């Protein structure tokens, strides 16, 4: 995979803070899981990316493509099999215990399911006090004060502090999850599908809250989601993942208006649209995502791709820059746009199953 040059990323930084150094940098990150008797599951396979201060990077893809694994590795919940992670230019791939504690203050996570990520036996006050206690930054009345302010900041009423998680609805619980992540004034938060378990009106509240907190505290987000319209709404840049690899990465407006990788095109076309003018003929990918066990060489998307040729099946695709800040891992990206327009409703060929329609 080509080295992504820093100036390219900086040009692409939709935040416009071009002189800043990246907050977090990941180089050739790999995460393999050993499955006894079967070999290795390549959950994340050679990912290189950067996240700038105050930037939101959206990470999209189907389930099983390795989105959450990337988040978990960045949070040091998993040890990477290969590659390096830099936080503010410091190598944090293998942190010492002390470094780990420091990093935990700076990097935090908001989980998908607000029902299972809060301890059901503890009142909200106790859940929100925990970060202060662990890091020994406050106690007694000061602690009470800080917890109350924290709750207020995310829009929780004071009476919520004395309730237990089961007494709250999904939206309130996710607010608690966000408050807990914000307690130590972090700089980077991994948001792993933070709104997918919520109703649309509650979803809007949580998205607005995340955006407000970013503005207020200068946060960076890695926003993992399979909902493309949510990602478009919140992200400055978007990375599309397929079977453990990034296949396209670009500033949000670019990726939605000038989609180049066939997989991204299919993904975008699969979203049901509310506006009648936008409804178009849909590219329906056949089959399911192939297994990430011991992947063969060649483009991983080739078996489901309607443009795949012999070369695609044998040669690894490299992430290359096609316009400033826009990287695509497809050697036939020039044709993909034209072919998409011509495709109409002919079903995509290939896949593991028979075409369904």
């Amino acid at each position, binding site marked *: 995979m080509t080295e992504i040059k820093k100036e390219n990323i900086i040009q692409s930084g939709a935040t416009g803070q071009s002189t800043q150094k990246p907050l977090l940098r990941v180089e050739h990150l790999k995460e393999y899981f050993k499955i006894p008797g079967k070999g290795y599951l390549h959950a994340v396979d050679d990912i290189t990316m950067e996240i700038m201060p105050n930037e939101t990077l959206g990470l999209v893809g189907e389930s099983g493509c390795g989105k959450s694994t990337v988040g978990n590795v960045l949070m040091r919940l998993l040890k990477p099999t290969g590659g390096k992670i830099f936080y503010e230019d410091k190598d944090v791939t293998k942190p010492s215990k002390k470094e780990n504690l420091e990093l935990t203050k700076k990097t935090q996570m908001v989980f998908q399911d607000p029902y299972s990520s809060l301890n059901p036996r503890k009142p909200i006050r106790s859940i929100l006090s925990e970060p202060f206690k662990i890091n020994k930054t406050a106690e007694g009345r000061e602690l009470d004060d800080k917890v109350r302010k924290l709750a207020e900041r995310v829009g929780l009423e004071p009476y919520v502090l004395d309730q237990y998680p089961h007494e709250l609805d999904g939206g309130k619980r996710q607010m608690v999850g966000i408050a807990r992540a914000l307690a130590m004034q972090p700089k980077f938060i991994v948001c792993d599908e933070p709104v997918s378990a919520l109703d649309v009106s509650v979803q809007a509240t949580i998205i607005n809250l995340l955006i407000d907190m970013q503005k207020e505290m200068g946060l960076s987000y890695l926003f993992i989601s399979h909902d493309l319209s949510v990602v478009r709404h919140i992200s400055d840049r978007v990375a599309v993942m397929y079977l453990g690899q990034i296949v396209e990465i670009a500033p949000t407006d670019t990726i*939605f208006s000038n989609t180049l990788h066939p997989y991204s095109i299919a993904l975008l076309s699969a979203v049901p649209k509310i506006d009648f003018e936008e409804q178009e003929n849909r590219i329906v990918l056949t089959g399911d995502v192939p297994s990430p066990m011991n992947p063969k060489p060649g483009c991983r998307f080739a078996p489901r791709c309607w443009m795949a040729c012999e070369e695609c099946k044998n040669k690894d695709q490299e992430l290359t820059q096609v316009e400033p800040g826009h990287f695509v891992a497809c050697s036939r990206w020039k044709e993909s746009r034209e072919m998409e327009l011509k495709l109409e409703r002919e079903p995509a060929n290939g896949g593991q199953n028979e075409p*369904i329609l």
Partner: protein
Amino acid sequence: MEEILKISKLSVEYRSGDTVAKAVNGLNMTLYKGQAMGLVGESGAGKTTTALSVMGLLPDKIGYVTGGDIEYKGQSLLKMKEKELNTIRGGKISMVFANPLSSLNPVFTVGHQITMVLRQHRHMTEKEAHAEAAKFLKMVGIPEYRMEDYPHQFSGGMRQRVGIAAALVCSPEILIADEPTTALDVTIQAQILELMKDLQKTMDSSLLMITHNLGIIAELCQTVAIMYGGEIVEYGSVREVFENPMHWYTIGLLNAVPKLTGKRERLASIPGNVANAQMLPEGCKFHPRCGYCTKTCRTKQPEMICVNENHYVQCWERGGKAETKRPAKGGNQ
């Protein structure tokens, strides 16, 4: 058009100890032959309860139909005996459930579960049923040899397709789909939606699509009913309701959804929480969350008003002056 399912003034309660939750409150709805209708609302609006009442699958000794009627081709489903109901349920009216892992039986093969439907309703021999089941599984993209597999051996998308095949195998006149794609990825969702669109066309069956995804409704359905607090608050053709929403709840829902095109603006969330079925407010059920609530809204239950022949709304504030205030269509302008 022929009326195929008519729900009139349906009320459903869930009782547990001393608490009573009024899940559905006087719901009126008519489904015509060959029509695809969407039922939209947040969780707790009573969408699934409505579907379960039609199927006669309300949880025993907890869920009670307290009023109204459900008619299938003029026959009351509620007054029917269990034995009679069994001849219709699964055969003439069938349902696809939200979670395919819990709606399939884990100890029987997929093939067995589909052939059982055919043997029960069409009285086929084992051999005939097997051939018919294989045909339907092939239609949803699952090869015949996988009939001997158990549900856990399938991926989420395939399991849902099995659920759909099982629901369609007797060519039902009414298919009720309760959030059939929420557990699935967008690409698999697209496969399922295309499949349902095609099947509905070829079999001329009626579809009741329950979802909170407004995009799915826009692509699949001709009419839509917006549900809130166990009532339908707005009803009409999809185009009419989505392009010219009248009820403030519908407008709120449409504005809360991030869009795939256009300018990215701050999302408008609906203040407050979904109406609590245990303590429903007086008057219009939406009034505590509505920014345009008047005195009448707080005290008197609004009635369905006709905006035009394709559009009905249940709102005091909108009554009589339907054309004066066109709400801004959020996000897109």
